[in-house]
């Protein structure tokens, strides 16, 4: 009985593998492949549906007594290109690094932090979202914007997804 079951299993596996055989044309999987880098004021498509445009960056010193404590405020627009209502959370994630070190986020000095959790209808754009990051030095900051794709098919080859990087100068 066990042998019969084993034989049947082998037969099923063989048929399954045979079904994967090429029949005429090769099946090529495709997906949107985001750029590796982008620039300020550029329409950056970070995944299949989300577009980000960084419109402004500024550096502030919230405490005049501590001139070394600087915060980078990044202002951007987000277009929800999906067909449904979304918030920034779950759609994309913007983080920042300076000299390879992740910067601490800070929302104390942005104009309206609730834009980060404001629901947007599909096809609409939310303007003037702001995020803040505590700077470590005066060197350039690399912003990383990651969409919600887990895998990208680059020329049919599946690869782990990656963030789009934008370099901004600290002014």
């Amino acid at each position, binding site marked *: 009985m066990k042998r019969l079951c084993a034989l049947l299993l082998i037969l099923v596996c063989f048929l399954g593998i045979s079904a994967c055989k090429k029949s005429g044309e090769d099946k090529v999987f495709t997906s949107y492949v985001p750029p590796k880098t982008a620039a300020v004021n550029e329409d950056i498509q970070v995944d299949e549906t989300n577009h980000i445009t960084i419109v402004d960056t500024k550096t502030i010193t919230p405490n005049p007594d501590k001139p070394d404590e600087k915060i980078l405020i990044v202002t951007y627009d987000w277009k929800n290109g999906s067909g449904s209502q979304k918030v920034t*959370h779950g759609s994309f*994630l913007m983080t920042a690094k300076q000299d*390879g*070190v*992740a910067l601490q*986020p*800070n929302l104390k000095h942005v104009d309206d932090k609730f834009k*980060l959790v404001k629901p947007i209808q599909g096809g609409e754009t939310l303007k003037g979202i702001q995020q*803040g990051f505590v700077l470590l030095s005066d060197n350039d900051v690399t912003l990383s914007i990651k969409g919600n794709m887990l895998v990208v098919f680059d020329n049919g080859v*599946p690869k782990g997804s990656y963030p789009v990087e934008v370099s901004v100068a600290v002014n």
Partner: protein
Amino acid sequence: MAKSETLSGKEMLTEKKKFNVFDMIGGIFKPILIVIIGAGVLQALRDILVQVGAISRVSSSYIFLDGLGSAVFYFLPIFLAISSANVFKATPFLAAAVAAFLLFPSITNLYSWANSVGWDLTLFGKIPITYVKYESSVLPIILIVFFQSKIEPLLKKIIPDLLRSILFPVLTLFITCIAGIIILGPIGTWLGDGLALVITWLNSKLPWLVPTLVGAASPFLVITGSHYSLFPVATQNLAQLGYDTVLMPGMMASNIALAGASFAVAIRAKQKSYKSYCASSGITSFFGISQSSLYGIAIPLKKPLIASVIGGGVAGFYAGIMNMRAQSFITPGLLSLVGYSTPTSNLINAVICIVIAFAATFILTFVLGFEEPSKETVRELTGEPISESEKQEIIDKAEELEATAREAEEALGDAGMEVTRATIASGASRLGQAAGLVSPSEEENKEEEDQVQKADEQEGGDA
């Protein structure tokens, strides 16, 4: 019945006193070590394939292979929830549901997003929620299931029987999950954050001491999950200085020390399957995946843990005084030697550190000795089925017990018959007296009364 088979109340109290944290951790980890060791070997294989250039980190093969090894560690809280529930006598699948809630993608993404943008998460707009990385965590779920085990009896007492099937799981899940994310879950993070502050301060004052402490205390950091709090410190060091002295050298020393303890136990152990388990754990510890050595050998046997702490500490001390520098973030084990390759003296120091950690712990484990775990424990660890001879032994014992039970039953039956006979005789005699057909003598009366009394006593004793 033999005294050893049953415990009196006093003995139970004494037994309770003997219960300690190591037994508890051992009890929680024992059932899941089989998956940890499997996943650990797969992770080591993945690292080797990457190091030799057989697969790339961005390839789909890597994603699959990584998933095979890492999924167990990612979902570790679910495994821990079930085993903790068995230890704390909570409902296992409700505990698993709580762990699944903590690892639910929407929850983990929300935590990660809030932590990345600096958003203060709250519950119902009022109660603050601390960011916790629940993936691969250990301490939070153990604390949460312990809490669950305490509220379950209370809920069972409060909820009416009629509504228990609906309200019990609902309230258990709700209360446990909420208490978990608000108080119990963050405890590990708070401990870890405090530890990171202390280590950073120590590193600025006594840099040689940090690898010593990490080398010695790594097993405890891993148990509580506090080692994750040192990852940002190490990453920052690598990014800013180009090397790390805080986490990687000490962790490497500790993992190799656990490998040394595992191999020493493998050599001295008597049971074949345990020898094999220890050798496999030693190999994975060499590659930096030390959970199976820690939870299956060091913690349950205790003395190998002491040896690992000393061996790891000594090797960590060497790493500290020689200012060993890890130049890349590779799982701390043999493969991480690549990260110590420049200058050559750094590599030589790293090799010496490995030798010290391994040799010191190996020798200490031999010297200190250990008490080998029981066959049942080993079987639980290795997932090995029972042998035919052991099966026969169990069957024989069961048959013996069955025969004893049958004899007792027969004895009880005889006693019952005697009681019935005496009762009928007494009843008939009374009936005869009442009808005036019989006038019993005093002797007869006394005899009957004695018989009934004796039978009643016997019945009471059997019962």
